[in-house]
């Protein structure tokens, strides 16, 4: 088993408990204003690829990257966007949390920093919590005062027709050193009671959040509103807007978040 893992993960530390791997991305403004990526390192199951960016931005795809953290794995992604740089990160596939042999939870840590006048679009695919898995996700973003961050998170509780695994997902965002958002969702077997009840998820199996931090929102915050029956758009206490959506399936969540993204980037562009 270990030899097999080593074959697919040549540079990651492999232990009996699981894989430890970190991917690193650094974006910096280069000559002529186009963003360059002096650091672009994958490791083990985390592969990163540069793809063609638009208008001088840096564009990176996490390839199969977020796939399959198994119980006991410790995966981390770190992206630093220097002052004035522009980075867009997407993924080629959904991440599926699966049970491991060790019986230990898997950890997935994402650390993002966005410097002054910099822009980061962090748009990974869904995280699917498979039956029997146990994953702790921590996403922490530090955003400078006049930076732009667009961050999407989607969780799907169980594959099609399957009961969910255990998932704890924390999202912490600071803006100019002040707390902007700190939330933790805990669901699946062993989560505090009531997680599937009428106050939290009410039997729905897909949820998503879209956070948009933009300096324009200081002067003109978004107007709170519903986006359909089970999704809302709300201004945060800072230069940011948050969309929260719950639905029966991942597709419905994505549709709401896509529409909201268009709306939010449009509103900011119009200065409304």
């Amino acid at each position: 088993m270990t030899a097999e893992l080593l074959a697919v993960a040549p540079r990651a530390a492999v232990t009996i408990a699981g894989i430890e791997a970190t991917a690193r991305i650094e974006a910096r403004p280069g000559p002529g204003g186009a963003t360059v990526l002096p650091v672009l390192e994958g490791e083990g199951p985390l592969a990163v690829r540069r793809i063609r960016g638009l208008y001088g931005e840096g564009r990176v795809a996490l390839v199969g990257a977020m796939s399959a953290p198994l119980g006991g794995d410790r995966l981390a992604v770190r992206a630093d966007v220097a002052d004035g740089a522009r980075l867009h990160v997407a993924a080629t596939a959904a991440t599926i949390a699966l049970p491991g042999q060790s019986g230990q939870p898997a950890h997935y840590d994402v650390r993002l920093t966005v410097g002054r006048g910099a822009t980061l679009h962090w748009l990974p695919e869904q995280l699917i919590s498979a039956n029997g898995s146990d994953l702790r996700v921590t996403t922490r973003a530090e955003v400078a005062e006049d930076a732009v961050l667009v961050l999407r998170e989607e969780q799907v509780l169980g594959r099609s027709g399957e009961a969910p695994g255990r998932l704890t997902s924390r999202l912490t965002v600071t803006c100019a050193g002040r707390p902007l958002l700190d939330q933790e969702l805990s669901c699946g077997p062993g989560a505090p009671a009531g997680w599937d009840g009428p106050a939290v998820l009410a039997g729905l199996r897909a949820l998503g959040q879209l956070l948009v931090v933009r300096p324009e929102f200081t002067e003109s915050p978004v107007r709170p509103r519903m986006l359909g029956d089970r999704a809302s758009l709300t201004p945060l206490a800072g230069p940011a807007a948050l969309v929260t959506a719950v639905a029966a399936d991942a597709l419905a969540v994505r549709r709401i978040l896509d529409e909201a993204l268009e709306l939010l980037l449009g509103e900011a562009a119009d200065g409304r």
Partner: protein
Amino acid sequence: MSRAALLVLADGRFPAGGHAHSGGAEEAVKAGRITDAATLEEFCRGRLHTAGLVAAGLAAAAALGIDPLVLDDAADARTPSAALRTAGRKLGRQLLRAARATWPSPELSALAAARPRGAHQPVVLGLTARAAGLGPEDAAYCAVYESVGGPSTATVRLLSLDPFQATAVLARLAPAMDETVTAAVTAARRALDDGVDALPRASAPLLEIGAEAHAAWPVRLFAS
């Protein structure tokens, strides 16, 4: 500490305006998610372990003497719904008025001066407990009890639910309330060293979304 002071503070008749809020129950009743005592209990359990735990952590931290303005920012970050932030500050302002008249203290006056439009209710609650000579456990107990007491009382009015059944729901939640208080106080003590990052931040998507839906209704019985 004075056990009688705890009863004064926790009493539903303490003039702090909490009776005007349903804790999301009004929206959940209209949406058909609360229909009887059993669904009320599930709602309350979910609220206790999310909004209740967060409020208890903030209240315990304030009672321990952590800077209330830092806690107020932490409460903002843990309350993404604008409607819930508005409700929380309104309740905080009303509680602060009542508390300053009941247990005058320089800390309460300083908070009122620093946050004239109101600080988040759990922060005020913790500081009030402190002014009343109570400890972090007491503050956390008030917060968790409120987090389920409000929806329970509101549901009696909204669904004409038998008040005996609603009270039985609260009694069944008692062990979970004890556990939540322990978790909140443990986190608050950790926050003394590690900062407010250590405080609970459990979220309930449907409470957040429902609060925005409720705020947009033209006519409602409860303020939140």
